[in-house]
């Protein structure tokens, strides 16, 4: 339903041009949860913003296509985009307390969004809000409607945000680190809710996160991003159990696991490139333990590795094709 093709986003800053997203290509299918995972600065959040054409200044989308149900969102006018944002595509963020306006009641914020997108009266919008609160498992929906954001806990605020996001019948939900600011028992509640929304209401979800365990538990397919591009993509079990790209392998080896106790953790040498000075060729080559000559010169395309749909951008899996 959503396909992002060859997306480039850059930021012009005093320190130079930051290449935040460099050729990002992936798609989110009808009724699935697609995980976009990566470390700080890999371009995952900027990609989420780019889908809704909300890249903050001085950022700009340089080129690419963002197809949503057959329409290229990059060709739409600003007015047309306003009905897409919060209408057919909704987005929720890491910190729900900064997404809600502290001086308006939850009810007035939700009904305003509903009336912006659907032509209903105040009373009907209220009813719809109550139904949504019920659907996201908020206790005492009528009480929440009257409450102000500070009166709700973090988990309840995030539920209210999800209700608000989906209240106008969004088909795609972009969730940017939706549980990172929450405690682990509350995170479990919110992840269960997202899974339920996908299963019962068929909402498609683009889940942006840094947490591979969250991906393992909730997503169907996953794309691993590094320096603004996907380096490995496929079914969650393929990517996380039979990872092929040296970066994915390094990332998983760095996580402490029960089976690794007592041993020292593996870490990836060096640090993430800063976006101003991207290395030539494969962006991971300066840190890669298996670097080859070709990696320093040419950027690897995605090669098929093992299972169907499992692809990795690495010359280890297709040097002969590349020559």
């Amino acid at each position, binding site marked *: 339903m959503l396909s992002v093709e060859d997306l480039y986003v850059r930021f012009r800053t005093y320190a130079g041009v930051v290449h935040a997203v460099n050729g990002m290509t992936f798609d989110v299918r009808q009724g699935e949860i697609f995980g976009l995972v990566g*470390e*700080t600065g890999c371009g995952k959040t900027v990609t989420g913003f780019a889908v809704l054409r909300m890249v903050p200044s001085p950022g700009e989308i340089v080129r690419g296509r963002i197809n949503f149900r057959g329409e290229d969102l990059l060709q739409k006018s600003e007015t047309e985009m306003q009905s897409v944002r919060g209408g057919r595509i909704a987005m929720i963020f890491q910190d729900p307390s900064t997404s809600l306006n502290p001086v308006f009641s939850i009810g007035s914020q939700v009904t305003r969004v509903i009336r912006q997108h659907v032509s209903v009266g105040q009373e009907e919008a209220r009813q719809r809000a109550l139904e949504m609160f019920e659907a996201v498992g908020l*206790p005492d929906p009528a009480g929440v409607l009257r409450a102000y954001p500070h009166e709700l*806990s*973090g*988990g*309840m605020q995030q539920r209210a945000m999800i209700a608000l996001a989906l209240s106008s019948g969004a088909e795609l939900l972009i969730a940017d680190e939706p549980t990172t600011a929450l*405690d*682990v*028992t*509350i*995170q*479990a*509640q919110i*992840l*269960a809710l997202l899974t339920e929304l996908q299963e019962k209401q068929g909402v498609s979800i683009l889940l942006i996160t*840094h*947490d*591979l*365990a*969250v991906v*393992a*538990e*909730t997503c169907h397919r996953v794309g691993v991003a590094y320096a603004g591009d996907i380096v490995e993509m496929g079914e969650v*079990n393929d990517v*996380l159990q039979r990872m092929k790209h040296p970066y994915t392998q*390094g*990332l*998983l080896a*760095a*996580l*402490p*696991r*029960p*089976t*690794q*106790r007592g041993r*020292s*953790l*593996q*870490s*990836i040498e060096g*640090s*993430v490139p800063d976006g101003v000075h991207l290395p030539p060729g494969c962006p991971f080559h300066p840190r890669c333990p298996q670097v080859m000559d070709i990696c320093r010169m040419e950027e690897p395309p995605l090669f098929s590795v093992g299972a169907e749909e499992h692809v990795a951008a690495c010359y280890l899996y297709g040097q002969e094709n590349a020559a």
Partner: protein
Amino acid sequence: MSAAPLLETRGLTKHFASRRGLLSRRRKWVRALDRADLSINRQETLGVVGESGCGKTTLGRAIMRLIQPTSGEVLFEGQDIVPLSNRELRHYRRDMQMVFQSPYSSFNPRFSVMSSITEPLRTHTRLHGEALVSRAHELLEQAGMPGEILYRYPHEFSGGQLQRIAIARALALNPKFIVLDEPTSALDVSVQAQIINLLQKLQREFELTYLFITHDLSVVQHISDRIAVMYLGKVVELSTTEIIFSEPQHPYTQALLASAPSLDPELRRERIILPGGVPDPANPPPGCSFHPRCPMVMPVCSQIEPAFINIGHGHKVACHLVGGEQENPPTV
């Protein structure tokens, strides 16, 4: 474990005043830390886990006397440091250091690495000149940073590098004990791995004792010898890492472990999704403070606070389900 513990807390308690409303004179007390009894053995890592507001940071700060405990004792090598004056404390401060969550706010942006790292040395020792510089070099190298960065400033470093410098500073006075308050929570996983490895290496090299505070269960499992689980200001379970992860007794510990997402499908536990959120610590529920969310709640739980009892081999639990004679006779 016959040797005396390096550090012990007895009934350590901290209450914060919270005013209700701007003009209200009525004060309410938040029991951020309630009668914590813990002991930390030499060269051991005691992990403290819990969710936000459980009092784990307050525990670390009260032990360091960065905040003055309301009551209770902190015994460091047998000496209670709670009643000591600031002047008397100086002696102990050499042996006890702390590393914080955010490396960015742990440094004065106007101080060079040299000034930050040598501040404890200048305060507590007579080192100066060449000797001071060479000691700073040595500290940085122990923490895996090149000595040349001495005259650079905090903004020139990444989070992981700053955390290494913070660790170097904590080591300056050859401490025996370090409180690590979420030292890797602000870092990416690949950097987190580097810092954890560094901490473990330094522990072996300098025979350090750690109190490791975190909300991350996989990190605490990796680094700790024993683990204390906290909920709403209280320690609810304490045991070795193996026991906590294989046979947790407190329903909160069980739920906490089951809530954490896991990478390995074969290790995935059956989900226990706790209803609701953590209650307001200014107004904790009566009896066991976990009872409103507990899947195994009994009538007694809302009336009587369970004692923190030893169920064998130093495994302590505060729950009526274990050793509560009147309700549940232990099934053997």
